[in-house]
């Protein structure tokens, strides 16, 4: 009857911090579930024409995952760091499956349904972004983290700065450099594909 308990999430975070890779496997479904709810709420708001602040949405979900008791700064900051990684993991995993289902499965493109094609393209973009991000981390790991926190974790610049314990200015500069580099990287790889 219980969807998840807050206690579990904090425990798992600790285990993950202590280097237990299995914790991530357990954390993933919990976060995925929340992610799904967030998505649900987002789409619903969008449909009714209300714009929902993304940060609001994200914070609400995080607060629920952690529980009020554990929502103090330290675990919050730590949690943001982990959840961004988990979300990246989930989304990329999903995108890869779609992406390779297309290329490996030999399924013919059907023009009847555009949404499916969009989804495939999106999957390809996500996979490429993930790869580019991995490359970026090779020579500038902090920028890669900033993107992970912002893009996959949904954090604001301020929150990312807190998690990384650097100034807002630094995060802002990291972000624009990383964004420019990733943009160019993806554009190049798209051209080389065609």
């Amino acid at each position, binding site marked *: 009857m219980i969807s998840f308990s807050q206690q579990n999430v904090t425990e798992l975070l600790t285990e993950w911090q202590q280097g237990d890779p299995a914790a991530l496997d357990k954390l993933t479904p919990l976060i995925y579930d929340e992610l799904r709810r967030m998505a649900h709420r987002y789409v619903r708001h969008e449909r009714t024409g209300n714009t929902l602040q993304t940060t609001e949405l994200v914070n609400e979900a995080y*607060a629920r995952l952690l529980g009020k008791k554990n929502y103090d700064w330290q675990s919050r900051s730590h949690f943001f760091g982990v959840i961004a990684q988990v979300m990246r993991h989930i989304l990329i995993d999903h995108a890869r499956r779609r992406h390779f289902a297309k290329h490996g499965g030999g399924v013919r493109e059907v023009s009847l349904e555009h949404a499916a094609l969009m989804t495939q393209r999106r999957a390809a973009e996500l996979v490429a972004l993930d790869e580019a991000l991995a490359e970026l981390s090779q020579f500038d790991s902090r920028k890669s983290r900033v993107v992970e926190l912002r893009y996959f974790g949904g954090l604001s610049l301020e929150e990312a700065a807190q998690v990384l314990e650097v100034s807002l200015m630094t995060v802002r500069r990291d972000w624009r450099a990383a964004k420019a580099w990733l943009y160019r990287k993806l*554009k190049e790889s798209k051209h080389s594909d065609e």
Partner: protein
Amino acid sequence: MTPDRWQKVEAIFQDALDSPPQERASFLDQAFSDDDDLRSETARLIAAHDEAGNFIEQPALVEDARIILAHKLGNNIGREIGLYRIVDRLGAGGMGEVYLAEDSRLDRLVALKLLPAYFASDDERLARFQREARAASALNHPNILTIHEVGEADGVRFIATEFIDGQTIQELIARQELTLAEILDIAMQIISGLATAHAAGIVHRDIKPDNIMRRGDGLVKILDFGIAKLLEVPAHGAPSAGTAMFTETGAVVGTVGYMSPEQARGLAIDERTDIWSFGVVLYQMLTHRLPFTGATRMDTLVEILEREPLPLLPVGTDAAPELRSLVQLIEKTLRKNRDDRFQTALELQNDLKQVRQEFASAGIRNEETFAELLSKRDVAGFTAASAKTRKAPSPFVFIALGVAVLLAVAIAAAITYQNLLTPRQAERSGAAPVTSSEKVYVEMTDTERLAFIAAQEQRISTMMGDRPAKLDEEALRAIKRQIDHYVARSGSGSDTADNESLDLIYARARPYLPTIARSFAARKVPVIIGIYLPMIESAYRPCFESSIGAKGLFQFLPQTARQYDVASGELCDVEKVAPAAAHYIADHMAELGDDAESMTLVLLSYNTGATWVRGSLRQLRDSEDYERTFWMLFRNRDRLDESFRNEGAGYVPMFFAAAIIGENPRNFGLEMEPLSTLTGMNDVTTLPPRTN
């Protein structure tokens, strides 16, 4: 890119961006006077920065929200299953969602049914179904739907069948335009398909207008051979524990009208059951009504078992000569004792041919309808048979229906509840005024809607054992928003699970209601909770699995389920899970206190966990203006934990919205008996009155 090189590029990139755009070129020249490579690298990065715009500015969540939902929430459009790609949704049946899909191997469209895990989890049953479905399909008869494939891919069990671009007989009947000639043609085609299947030893078991389609070119197809058997839950315990009722919980609820007496009694069935059901369909095509109907399913079953069909022709009139043989034919399909019916479809087919010939020689025109034919004979329409002429059911009929519990609750429901609480009765007795009862909800003004909601909420609060509380306007508006939301999505195209129409949710809910009602009543938990909770949680998906492994109609985690004697393989078995869910709620209510607010908290523990709920309750009880009403949650939400507030505030109005809609389906333009007529609903009042 090496870290060193990147550092240089980035440093200049940052500085360049901080300087005015027109000075950037000269700034770069100056910075990289000796390294053209680095210069162009940096220039490209700056260009990329200027070009990037909103790239990755929106979190992935926002961009992928739809993908996530499409993947997890059942909007399967665009999804690929094996070699099929889902193109559109065709509808929902008792056994799962049906989609239009493209078969990538052959350039053709198919109807793809995704079997819910509930049905697909039993390998033996599925195998049996596969054998049967394939056997029927292998008959290769034009009036039997062809099954292309029964398979499994990407963890989903599916049936791919021929796609029929046409209408169900149900739809055709609803339009009331079928001429006599068309009806006879459809009947001939059905019986032709049945004759072939029966000759091969295959019985359909669930012949009804929903299971028969007519294509644009007039070809009639019988759908879903073998599926009825797949839906039958093997009886646990006593053999008399009615296959009929269990089948009912499976999928044919609401269609008991087509059941043969032997089916209703849970006896073994043979092809003569199909002949009966065929007779009912033929009867309905002619008269647009069913030969056996009652206010409740139980009443209908009694009619089937005990009473003669409503006369096909108006009382007191003898059949016109040319109609006589048709009337006799239908009467013979509807004999209680199957030995008195047509014994084979072939026999029936011969008689039907005869009828058609007689019609032709009597000069009946093709475009004539049955009603026209009757009125031409100067007969004033149809009147139902006078109840006086029909004998009352004897007590043994109920016993024949099986389960003792059912007997008790059915009788109680029939006697007590219906008299007390059906809206019309209630209104007449003045017990609970129903405002604007003449108007359908959608036609009401906002003020009328609020008044209507206030009245309904009081009725439901009473049912829940709570003293009706006068709601403040804010609370009423919260419920109204939920109801308006439901109503707005009724009939609208459904592109996500969330957007499903009310009809669809109801259609899915119906098979489970009797079981849930029974289980919850047995635990003295208000049945209304058992009924609405899954509606809120899952829009009544018979068995869905959340990513954390919660499964079934109720979201039971496997370990919780084990504590309540539900094995992991049984999480989709409503018969097992519903009593366990009732037990869980009863346990927690006993722990928290037997009052309405505890119940609310227990409900919320679906999402938040019982330990935490207990803490919140204590916290709340310590507070000074703790109100012992169901609405204390809503009123005190500011005092509650943040996550509770998020869940709770939305939850309570949602609960009432679902309850209000369910109590009065007709107020929302839905053709369905009110949930208050359900078996066991009378037990909602068994909650001990609060002491205060």
